[in-house]
């Protein structure tokens, strides 16, 4: 018997209405995540990974159309929930979010502590002092002195703000924390120390994470599994070991080769060309134009092939001759 995944995304689609027509930011994404796992959604800017995060929490901008597909949270399709039920039952209790720009993720006119403790007041009905006490505990856990609870956001440094936002995401002990580029605005050392906090929390609390990032090195810091996105689609989904050692999709391999490494003598190699417009993507494989293995078959939309258990690739290549 297979275990019910904590999160299962099935054929998720999301488009934005623009002047020139719909832009399909998420175009048929399917993913799954088990309890206690960390899934990294990796992709370059504009590939739709942030839209994916926003769709999961249903905090879409006004020009977004209602998403299609399903989002199953432990066997319940929460995407079908009406708004109010989703707010009461899912947001922050089951799923929380850490945003990219912590600077802007905090309300500038409310003390940090109140903002961090707020979910407990709203969802659990706790008293303010009890919630603040809990907030102080979480603050210690993520590495800020509780004294900062009574400060305003602009009195905190960038690293502390990011930690505060992390504390806010953890305070209601959700099953799943979605991290949207949590460290990309931070310095190397701060970045490493926040990744350490995440690792510890994952180990000690068994929290599951979806980490969304464009940075391959960061992704390797937390990932149990990796899903690589390209032009609104997941092109490869694999365990971290497989992905970092033997990626199957040509894009994955080129991307790994393009990452500069400190401890490697070979020079990295860039990928020529640019991703297609999501406004009017070309038919067939979206990577075909930049792909060294481009063949006539690529004019057709590639199927998603399961190469091994939980290792899926959206490419014709494995069908045409196995993993090259």
């Amino acid at each position, binding site marked *: 018997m297979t275990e019910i995944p904590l999160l299962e995304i099935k054929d998720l689609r999301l488009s934005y209405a623009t002047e020139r027509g719909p832009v399909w930011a998420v175009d048929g994404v399917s993913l799954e995540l088990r309890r206690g796992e960390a899934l990294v959604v990796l992709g370059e800017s504009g590939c739709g990974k942030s839209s994916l995060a926003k769709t999961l929490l249903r905090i879409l*901008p006004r020009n977004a159309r209602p998403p299609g597909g399903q989002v199953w949270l432990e066997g319940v399709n929460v995407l079908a929930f009406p708004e109010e039920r989703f707010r009461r039952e899912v947001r922050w209790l089951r799923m929380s979010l850490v*945003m990219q720009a912590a600077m802007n993720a*905090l309300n500038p*006119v409310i003390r940090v502590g109140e903002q961090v403790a*707020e979910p407990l007041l709203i969802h659990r009905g706790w008293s303010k*002092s009890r919630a603040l006490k809990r907030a102080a505990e979480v603050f210690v856990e993520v590495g800020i002195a509780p004294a900062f609870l*009574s400060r305003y956001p602009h009195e905190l440094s960038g690293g502390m703000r990011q930690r505060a936002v992390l504390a806010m995401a953890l305070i209601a002990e959700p099953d799943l924390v979605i991290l949207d580029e949590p460290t990309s605005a931070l310095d190397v050392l701060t970045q490493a120390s926040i990744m350490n906090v995440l690792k510890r929390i994952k180990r000690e609390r068994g929290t599951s994470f979806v980490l969304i990032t464009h940075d391959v090195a960061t992704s390797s810091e937390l990932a149990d599994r990796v899903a690589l996105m390209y032009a609104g689609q997941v092109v490869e989904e694999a365990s971290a070991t497989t992905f970092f050692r033997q990626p199957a999709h040509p894009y994955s391999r080129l991307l790994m080769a393009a990452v500069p490494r400190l401890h490697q003598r070979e020079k990295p190699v860039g990928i020529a060309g640019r991703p297609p417009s999501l406004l009017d993507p070309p038919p067939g494989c979206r990577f075909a134009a930049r792909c060294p293995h481009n063949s006539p078959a690529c004019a057709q939309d590639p199927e998603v092939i399961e190469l091994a258990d939980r290792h899926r690739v959206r490419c014709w290549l494995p069908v045409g001759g196995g993993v090259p």
Partner: protein
Amino acid sequence: MMLETGADLNRDRAWMRDLRRLALFVGKRLVALVVTVLVGVYLTILIANMGGKVDELRLVQIKTAAAEQIRADPAFHDLPSAEREALMQAQVQLEVDRLRLDEPFIWRSFDYLYQAMRLDLGRAEEMHSDAGSRQVYNIIVERLPATLLLFGTANLLVFFVSVYAALGLSRRYGSKLDRAVIGLAPTSAAPAWFYGIFLILLLAFVVPLFPAGGMVAVPPPDDPWAYAASVLKHLALPVTAMFVAQIFISIYSWRTFFLIHASEDYVEMARAKGLPDRLIEQRYILRPTLSPIVTSFLLMLIGLWSGAIILEQVFNWPGLGTLLFEAIGHRDTPVIIGSVVIFAYLLAATVFLLDFIYAVLDPRVRIEGGRQ
């Protein structure tokens, strides 16, 4: 346990810190504003005296007045002309001494400034207050409550109605109501007095529901309740005029403002946190934007103070504006200059209020306002 007391202590200390910063900030702004008013009033004095040229005109005036007076008095008819001349000179000299016209203007201008700052605005030439005083200060102060009543009522109404309507519309973005308000926004290009004329035309003459002007029925009712009711009835049209002239643009601009703010990351975050809409609106949209809203509201108010003059005149409202209008009619210079000074004070008070509210509402101002 330790954590709890620590947090509580911290909160108290944080309040103290905020209060200290607020006091410091407000103090600094007050000093700056006093200097600003000083300069502004001095400029007014310079303009009003044409940089001293007015004195020459006044001297001529005094001379003619003295000559006139002596010629008119039968007691002096028999005097020889030289003696009459001397008498006239003495009369002129007396007046020159009184007004200290022989001193350089620049020295007197500082005296004027000192008097203006003390609200000693001099004597009116023609006009007098209802109580009979000729002091410009008394004349103006008598009219001030009427102006404040009219403007206070209208602006508070506009402020609260538009903020709440804007919040509501930002929620119903793109709806028919929303589009209707956007469509009506350009009507605010016309000032209140303009709508006032139409309102008088429609609701006072074509369909005589309201009085066309004045602040209270003539004669005023003795019963305080009837008096209040009468004032209310007279207030209705001018307030409506101001309301109509401002409301759509206010709703429109604040709706837009809220919409822009609704896409801030922290609002998105609040939504993700699962806060109910009402709480998001209040704590995450209204609260952080309140300071810019208050700013723009008060800036608008500054613009409206000017518009008051005509609105009051159109409705014959016995406030500062009508006073100024009457003063123009009488060419009563001291009253005009006095009104300008009073308006400058009102504006400065408005600016101060703005600074204060801003600092109370936005913790960033308290800290960063101090050092730039």
